[in-house]
């Protein structure tokens, strides 16, 4: 009789654990509409793949709360405020872009909610005015490194002597990357013949391109997102300019080739990962993504997947599912094996990682080389 009651007791204990896992709310901020919606979609899809994997073995039941930031800083801040004050999430994944992540990171930092962005590459996301935002982390490299790699690649591999830069003056990501590219390019004896800016809603680039065309630069660096890049690239080719186009991780969308067509073929960009790279974790993630959504995930999706898993692992290790305890565990993250490579945080909460260079060919993106920091 004693034995049976003991077993019953165990069963009861076990069943409470099995059937009523504690619910933990996690927020995702990403652009599901607007100029970079394909990024937002792949981020969301990858976030859910990570959650599904976690559901099988994790300690808690995750309640995801998705917010659309439309790639707009105001929308993003409002969404974050709602997640923090109304939904009371314990941690946030996102936002996707630097220009949204910078104001949101300020907000979560003052509200003491940990945030991991997969993809915001501007240095100001984790550090502003020399001060580290304690609650903010990212799973990607930062723009000074990306700009440097792009500039060195242009000088050494493309044998470029002159370059023009076209960037969005209202976008921290675009502006930062443009400046880092310029610095490295000039330091290594290259000449920047034009450093021109435009505004977010501009569609007419004819004046700027005519201006650049008379200088005939070897490369044109366009650190912006695929939509704008496709539009600019088309107008560049229509003006008969043959310079090689170069860009950053904002180019990584199948839409670029779809909208840009021949105008973007033969261009290069720096990126976080290439699906061609052989790696068991990446392959299993790509496999799952392909099965569910029918296409290969972009780097932004893979990074969101990694960011989500870093958070989930920290959550499982934490003694209590509270923001403070989770933060402690995120800080301890070391050699996290993710789809985009091994991730450890440096003192600023930035991931130390390598970057890959990808060429756009008629059939799609092609892996060229990997550059280590």
């Amino acid at each position, binding site marked *: 009789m004693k034995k049976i009651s003991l077993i019953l007791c165990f069963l009861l204990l076990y069943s409470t654990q099995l059937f009523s896992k504690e619910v933990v709310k996690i927020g995702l901020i990403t652009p599901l*509409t*607007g*100029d970079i*919606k394909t990024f937002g979609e792949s981020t969301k899809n990858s976030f859910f793949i990570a959650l599904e994997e976690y559901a099988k073995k994790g300690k808690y039941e995750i309640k995801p709360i998705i917010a659309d930031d*439309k790639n707009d800083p105001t929308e993003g801040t409002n969404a974050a405020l709602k997640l923090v004050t109304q939904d009371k999430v314990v941690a946030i994944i996102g936002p996707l872009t630097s220009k949204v992540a910078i104001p949101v990171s300020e907000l979560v930092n003052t509200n003491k909610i940990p945030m991991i962005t997969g993809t915001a590459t501007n240095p100001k996301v984790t550090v502003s005015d020399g001060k580290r935002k304690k609650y903010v982390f990212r799973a990607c490299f930062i723009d000074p490194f990306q700009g440097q790699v792009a500039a060195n690649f242009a000088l050494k591999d493309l044998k470029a002597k002159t370059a023009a830069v076209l960037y969005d*003056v209202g976008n921290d990501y675009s502006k930062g990357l443009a400046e880092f590219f310029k610095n490295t390019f000039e330091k290594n004896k290259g000449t920047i013949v034009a450093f*021109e*800016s*435009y*505004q977010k*809603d*501009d*569609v*007419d*680039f*004819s*004046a*700027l391109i*005519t*201006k650049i065309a*008379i200088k005939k630069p070897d490369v044109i660096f366009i650190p912006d997102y695929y*939509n704008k890049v*496709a*539009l600019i690239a*088309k*107008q560049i080719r*229509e*003006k*008969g300019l043959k310079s090689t186009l170069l860009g950053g991780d904002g180019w990584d969308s199948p839409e670029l080739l*779809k*909208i840009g067509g021949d105008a973007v073929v033969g261009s290069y960009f720096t990126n976080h990962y290439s699906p061609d790279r052989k790696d068991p974790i990446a392959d299993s993630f790509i496999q799952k993504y392909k099965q569910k959504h029918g296409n290969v995930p972009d780097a932004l999706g893979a990074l969101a997947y990694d960011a989500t898993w870093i958070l989930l692992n920290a959550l499982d290790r934490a003694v209590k599912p509270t923001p403070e305890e989770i933060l402690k565990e995120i800080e301890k993250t070391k050699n996290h094996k993710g789809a985009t490579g091994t991730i450890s945080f440096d003192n600023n909460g930035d991931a130390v990682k390598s970057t890959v260079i990808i060429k756009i060919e008629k059939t799609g993106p092609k892996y060229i080389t990997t550059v280590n920091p």
Partner: protein
Amino acid sequence: MEILIYLTQQFINGIQLGAVYALIALGYTMVYGVLRMINFAHGDIFMLGAFISYYGITKFNLPFPILILSTSLLTAVIAILIEKIAYKPLRNAPKISLLITAVGVSLFLEYTLSLNAFFTPNYIGFPRPFEIRSYDIGMFSINNIHLIIFSVTIISLALLYLLIYKSKYGIAMRAASHDLEITRLMGIRTDNIISFTFGIGGALAGIGGLLYSMAYPQINVFMGIMPGIKSFIAAVLGGIGIIHGAVLGGFIIGISEVFVSAFLSSTYRDGVIFIILFIFLLFRPNGIFGKNIEKV
């Protein structure tokens, strides 16, 4: 010589942009002439023109002349409907109500159409109905998009001229813009004239939308806002209510935009346009062709 070629090339860019502004500005100016109201929903008719031609190309594969005709016809009908539904009930209301209604119609169109069930809020690549071709004439190059924009604009302006100065409707319209009440007393159905004015303005904005998205091939539901404001400035610059003033204003705005981008920086571009507007409002509030008599 280099600089001369450069100037010419930039001038062509400016005329291309100015032509579209001129087409939109005409709608503002004609409606103002007749109703003394600023139709802030006009920029959204321009956006509708872009989307209608987008569907005309992708869904129905229309040949270019038919595309222009159907786009302008549809935008004309939409403009007339907007007038009938939103503005006509306010014919005797204070002018400020009309103005606020126009802002409301504009927001209604933008945000309703940005729903996923309609156009979605996303940026869409605009497929050109034909391949782009560049021609080198002497030292500078011009492409077929430029040529089409110039010729379509010139044809539209010529037709508009014939309509306004040679047809009975045009005479009635000019009379209405002179004095709506007296025109009504003369036995002219002013409601029809007002609809007619909105229709013409809508058709021109629709053509503008088509040409604009051909030149800068990306469309979005909010694309009408800035061109709308700039064309409005163009209409004020030329003297609001004056038709040739709107055309000249459009070209001035387009060309100065391009030249500011070319010689200063595109960051200053919109600023300079608004400074031009300020200067005009301070020293010549009636515009270039405006008479100096204040009309109440």
